[in-house]
């Protein structure tokens, strides 16, 4: 058991810190959350800066420990997270890298790394959320194209995306996991309509996407026809792995700010509130150690985080919500002022027990895949 970083890793951290100190001041001010074109420009500019400095592929090629250091340091420095580049860098990109042909990798991967192209995720459907394999959007072969009809939902960044990683049903008669294919679809193709969905936090974080006889070249299929489920499973585990590293660093900072606010307004003298903050501090320290545990485990599996990510996500998503409940008690009526970051963050924390698999789905995964309990009927 060793929690110290190697000289090489510390050198990587030092170089990164130095570069962040020099580069972050060059970045323009963070755009308004409602300004999607502004957000795209901001996120892709940052990605381009990372590319030019040689950090663009840290999510793909670096060791798990280097990636941990990268996420820790960028968050600590207040740098943007992947933002609109999320699907391309952490999902579609790794999928194409693992399962695509040489031509497909050459066509799609460099623009993702340079920040030139934005991807969105067309997996969920109105009737197929957690039960992803029941998706119904159909793709019918017509010459060298698929003709796609159906609809997708919860599609983050759809408004500004160039490409969509799309799961479609190519064999309606096959068992439900076996008739699915993975396609790359252009978002400006005729027949694609995007309708933004307003979240309870007030912004349009995601959209519904309607597909009306959209033609997608067969050459845009990654993996074999009807093998899309396996292709997808290769990458879904990444989403549940170390994706929250930066956020745990941010929560620990937030907790410190909250303690300062409590000391300033006198609520620190309330024993229950003070101990509640103490408890959360223990919780987030332990969550950080659990990340280090998961990263160490993933080194042995070649970087695939595995089911340990579900254990982490279950505790983290609830702890994050408790953090903002504590914030609301300390801030009192000020917690209702939407111009304050606290209020917006409190609302967005509600998504964490739902997105990327609800807590109920995560508990099934833990019970069945780690503890070996029987599949339910």
């Amino acid at each position, binding site marked *: 058991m060793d929690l*110290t970083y190697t000289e090489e890793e510390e050198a990587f951290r030092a170089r990164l810190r130095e570069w962040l100190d020099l580069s972050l001041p060059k970045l323009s001010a963070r755009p308004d959350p409602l300004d999607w074109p502004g957000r795209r420009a901001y996120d892709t500019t940052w990605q381009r800066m990372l590319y030019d400095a040689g950090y663009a592929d840290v999510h793909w090629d670096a060791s798990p420990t280097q990636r941990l250091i990268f996420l820790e340091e960028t968050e600590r420095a207040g740098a943007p997270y992947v933002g609109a580049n999320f699907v391309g860098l952490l999902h579609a990109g790794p999928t194409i890298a693992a399962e695509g042909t040489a031509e497909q990798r050459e066509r799609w991967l460099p623009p993702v790394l340079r920040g030139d192209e934005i991807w969105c995720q067309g997996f969920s459907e109105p009737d197929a959320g957690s039960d992803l394999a029941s998706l119904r959007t159909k793709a019918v072969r017509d010459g060298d194209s698929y003709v796609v009809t159906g609809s997708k939902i919860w599609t983050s960044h759809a408004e500004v995306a160039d490409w969509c990683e799309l799961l479609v049903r190519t064999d309606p008669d096959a068992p439900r996991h076996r008739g699915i294919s993975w396609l790359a679809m252009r978002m400006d193709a005729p027949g694609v309509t995007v309708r933004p969905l307003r979240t309870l936090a007030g912004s349009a974080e995601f959209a519904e996407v309607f597909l009306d006889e959209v033609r997608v070249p067969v050459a845009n299929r990654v993996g074999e026809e009807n093998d899309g489920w396996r292709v997808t499973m290769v990458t879904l585990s990444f989403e549940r792995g170390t994706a929250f590293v930066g956020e745990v660093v941010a929560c620990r900072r937030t907790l410190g700010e909250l303690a300062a606010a409590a000391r300033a307004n006198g609520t620190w003298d309330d024993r229950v509130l003070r101990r509640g903050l103490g408890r959360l501090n223990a919780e987030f320290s332990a969550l950080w*150690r659990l990340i*280090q545990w998961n990263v*160490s485990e993933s*080194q042995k599996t070649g970087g695939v985080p595995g089911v340990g990510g579900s254990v982490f996500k*279950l505790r983290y998503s609830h702890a994050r919500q408790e953090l903002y409940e504590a914030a609301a008690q300390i801030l009192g009526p000020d917690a209702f002022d939407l111009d304050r970051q606290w209020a917006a963050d409190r609302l967005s924390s509600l998504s964490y027990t739902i997105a990327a698999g609800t807590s109920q789905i995560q508990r*099934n995964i833990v*019970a069945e895949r780690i*503890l070996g309990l029987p*599949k339910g009927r």
Partner: protein
Amino acid sequence: MDFRLTDDQRALQRGVRELLAGRFGPEALRAAVDRGGTVDRELWRELGAAGFFSLRLPEAQGGAGLGLPEAVLVFEEAGRALLNGPLVATHVAAERSPEAAEGTCVVTCATQLRSLITHFAAADAALVIHGTGIRTRRPKDLPHTRPVRSMDPLTPLHRIPDGTPKAPPRPDTVLLTAAEQLGSAARTTDMAVRYAGEREQFGQPIGGFQAVKHLCAQMLVRTELARSAVYAAAITEDFTEIAGAKLLADEAAVRNARDCLQVHGGMGFTWEAEVHLHLKRAWLRGQMWLTAAEAEEIQADALASAL
């Protein structure tokens, strides 16, 4: 950075688990309950011979020269097996007493549980901790103690007179107790999962029902978070981190035992099932050395002093 156990640490963990499985299995546990939780002197000497108490002593003093991480792994196994006796106090007393190190003497502690002392009648000595220093006293130096009926059948208790000084917690005693809690939390998770996979109702194992499945999943989540905290604190030896580890390990042990009892249904509420023994000990350890309220205050102080 590689947080995983080394091969040597795994071997140590396996060795202790096998020793305890052979020497303190279900029958020995039952016998310990029947004799009111008094220490098995022969087992105590065997533990001493295996290095349980002298683990962290330098080799020149007959120890193994190992560190807190190794001690944590050993105490986790003790907690898993529900081994009884003042293990932490005797382990700490080994610093001063060769008899404690060898397991020929049982040392309890007068300052671990405020008004109560454990295993007083059987103890050869009682540890008094002040600051980071320790001294041992003969039991006769602690007059006016009287036995109380202990809720935990494996931990006999005596009340000590008011006014006994309350020592500030010594970090290693807190962490080793947390390690025992961790072992207990892991064990009750295993027990619940095994029972849920075997017990059938409505024509299927109850572990196939989501309500039961989710109880078991939450038990694992609590255990793994506590494990990360306990192991990391053993490496850093940072007292704030140790206090956090105790807080999370107490929670994991107590709540897992409760959930394990729930999974066992009516069987869980009987004396025959092992579950109540884990719950009662977990409650008791939760009061030992450092309480949840104290741990939360230490964490809050750390937040405030970082401002």
